């Protein structure tokens, strides 16, 4: 078969025409993609170009003031980060570093430097994001938009955890429900259930579940531990809120990716499995040598889609925590929407969206490079 194909290829590449086959193929490609590309251009790309433009202006959602070009200031306001080091206060008489009753060093108030201090104009309006101790000195990492910085770190962590875990669980589920068992369709439907119900609703239901006093989760853990479990206020605690959101998000979306894995599994020709069986392969070997290679592009797709969806974390946050407690669940999209819509600051919201777009574009290019087909 391969020989005849080789001949055919040689033959076709020689046939003389107005357009070469290559050109024809290229034209057809453009032509077939055109309807979708034109629609996307009109209803997605052009609006986004507007947003891109807004991010360099002071555009408001609602305002009688004219729009002005402000250069990069929306971006610098988001991204400015500085370090600042304070020495401990010295005792007037002993010239020793002061200590409070607990024995901790006493430092001048950071507020005195960052608010209206003419000697430190570069610190004006900055806020503490992180701080650490080195010897006697205390070093602060200051940011002009701490909420944005926290949102950025949160979303990166969220993506790093959710993308692999969710993709893996979804594949396991897909393998599980791809078995030829009676009634398997019922399970397929049940596993898909959380996806079917809108996220807004799901998030409202999970608020009941995570409730600190009489939530279902606490009740359940109480039963399982014979009453030894101390109720946790899952969404009210800065340490547990993000993990709670992560678990709920995976639970909700895993069915979505399960379906995609499943359709990938089902496009693998059954003859390949039959061939493997006749050669005496066990289930693990079948997975390793038939299933996994056949899922290559599905895997790339799912990885990229999950990454993308994870970066877009919004609805759960809006319904369950609104970024709190103490910014532990802030995300970039939540901030973009809050600023652009609720705070009527289209330019600020657009600037976040543009940054997010650039981040995801680079991630997506890296992922594509790493998973490129090597010819």
């Amino acid at each position: 078969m391969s020989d005849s194909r080789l001949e055919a290829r040689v033959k076709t590449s020689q046939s003389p025409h107005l357009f070469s086959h290559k050109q024809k193929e290229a034209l057809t490609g453009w032509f077939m993609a055109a309807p979708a590309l034109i629609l996307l251009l009109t209803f997605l790309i052009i609006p986004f170009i507007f947003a891109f433009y807004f991010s360099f202006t002071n555009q408001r959602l609602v305002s009688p003031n004219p729009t002005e070009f402000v250069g990069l200031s929306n971006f610098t306001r988001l991204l400015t980060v500085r370090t600042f080091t304070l020495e401990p206060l010295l005792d007037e008489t002993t010239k020793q570093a002061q200590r409070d009753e607990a024995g901790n060093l006493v430092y001048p108030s950071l507020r005195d430097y960052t608010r209206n201090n003419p000697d430190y104009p570069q610190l004006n309006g900055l806020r503490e994001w992180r701080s650490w101790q080195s010897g006697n000195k205390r070093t602060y990492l200051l940011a002009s938009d701490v909420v944005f910085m926290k949102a950025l770190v949160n979303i990166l962590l969220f993506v790093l955890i959710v993308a692999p875990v969710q993709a893996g669980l979804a594949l396991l589920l897909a393998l599980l429900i791809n078995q030829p068992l009676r009634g398997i369709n019922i399970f397929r439907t049940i596993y898909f259930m959380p996806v079917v119900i809108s996220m807004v609703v799901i998030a409202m239901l999970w608020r009941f579940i995570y409730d600190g006093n009489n939530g279902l989760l606490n009740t359940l853990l109480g039963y399982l531990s014979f009453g030894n479990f101390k109720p946790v206020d899952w969404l009210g605690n800065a340490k547990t809120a993000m993990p709670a959101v992560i678990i709920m998000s995976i639970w909700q979306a895993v069915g979505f990716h399960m379906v995609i894995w499943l359709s990938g599994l089902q496009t693998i020709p059954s003859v390949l499995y039959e061939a493997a069986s006749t050669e005496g392969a066990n289930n693990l070997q079948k997975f390793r040598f038939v299933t996994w290679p056949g899922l290559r592009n599905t895997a790339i797709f799912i990885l990229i889609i999950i990454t993308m969806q994870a970066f877009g974390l919004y609805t759960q946050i809006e319904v369950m925590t609104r970024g709190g407690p103490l910014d532990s669940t802030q995300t970039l999209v939540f901030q973009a929407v809050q600023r652009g819509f609720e705070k009527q600051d289209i330019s600020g919201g657009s600037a976040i969206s543009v940054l997010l777009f650039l981040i995801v574009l680079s991630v997506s290019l890296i992922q594509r490079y790493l998973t490129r087909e090597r010819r």
Partner: protein
Amino acid sequence: MTYKKLLALIATLFIFATASAQTPLSMWYHGAGNEVEKNILNGIITDFNASQSDWKIELQEFPQGAYNEAVVAAALSGSLPDIIDTDGPVMPNWAWSGYMQPLNLAEGSLDNFLPGAIGNWEGQVYSVGLWDAAVAMVTRRSTLEDNGIRIPSLEQPWTADEFNAALETLKATGKYDYPLDLGMAWTGEWYPYAFSPFLQSFGGDLIDRSTFLSAEGALNGPEAVAFGNWWQSLFANDMAPGTSQDGADRDTGFADGKYAISWNGNWAALGALSAFDDVLFLPAPDFGNGPKIGAASWQFGVSASSKNPEGANAFIQFAIQDKYLAAFSNGIGLIPATASAAAMTDNYADGGAMAVFFELSKQQALIRPPTPGYVVMALVFEKALADIANGADVQDTLDAAVDEINADIEKNKGYGFSN
């Protein structure tokens, strides 16, 4: 064709012409899904349409949670209706942006209205409400008497110390999950509406109301920090459920006996009254600068793009009759905007179960800062309150809130205010 027939034809045409001469006016309202409100409003509209031959109101309802977005979208696409309703504190934002025009009502029409029901911007009336809302400390007579807590009055509200001591006492009984329910589950406008009066009673505010150009000192001065420390202590000492309170507990917690005192609006009063027979509605505590509660609810106004403002004004003039104020109050439990209308209602007439709210509204109400920047302030304040409740440093948090509010004012070139 006979002369008579021709005359009849002309007459018919004439009737037809006058019938269709009613110019249609579009009106938007935020109450979709609330049948009672819809029926009352439709009643007013039917009465109005029948009362004159120039205008015909056509109502379009939106759900409240999505109403502002719908209005903003309509304004951007140039398709605002003639009459819009607006949440009181949002009105200056819409007036400043040119969505609305000043009302043109007959002289003296609003003389007897509660101040909170009138929306002023730049010295002109832009909106008027048929009702106001008020907030009170809801509790039971038996709860206070059994624990030896004084029942406060409008003349003599609780002092800060008295209030804090009452919470301690109630907590010590061990009978409640929390002595106080602030309604932290109700995110959004509830925070500034219900809690900024505490700040104001401490002597702080969301903004310096003498200029409306800066929050420095008002929101991060010593009074505001005192407020913040008190606020934080409520949650640190488990006096009130925090930001993760679930909506269900907010709705049923007081009736279930989980909370001793609930800081709640008059719209929830009917529910409390049906749960217990000794319910009290008490004024806000006085934290030093007098007891305060928020004011201003939904109000009617005329859109700037209306081609028939006289018709729109005629409708609003028609709608603010006492009988309609009373009808709304009886239907949805809100405070009628005039005393004469209150006298016509079941609950707010002298001796009525909720009469106290009318007095609360009259004596303690302070409207939220009437500036276009309020929309942003409200969100910033909400976040600051949530962060402080969750243990954030009070001074830092308030400083950050001030910075954000001031930056926003600057970005908007003072929102029409100048030094």
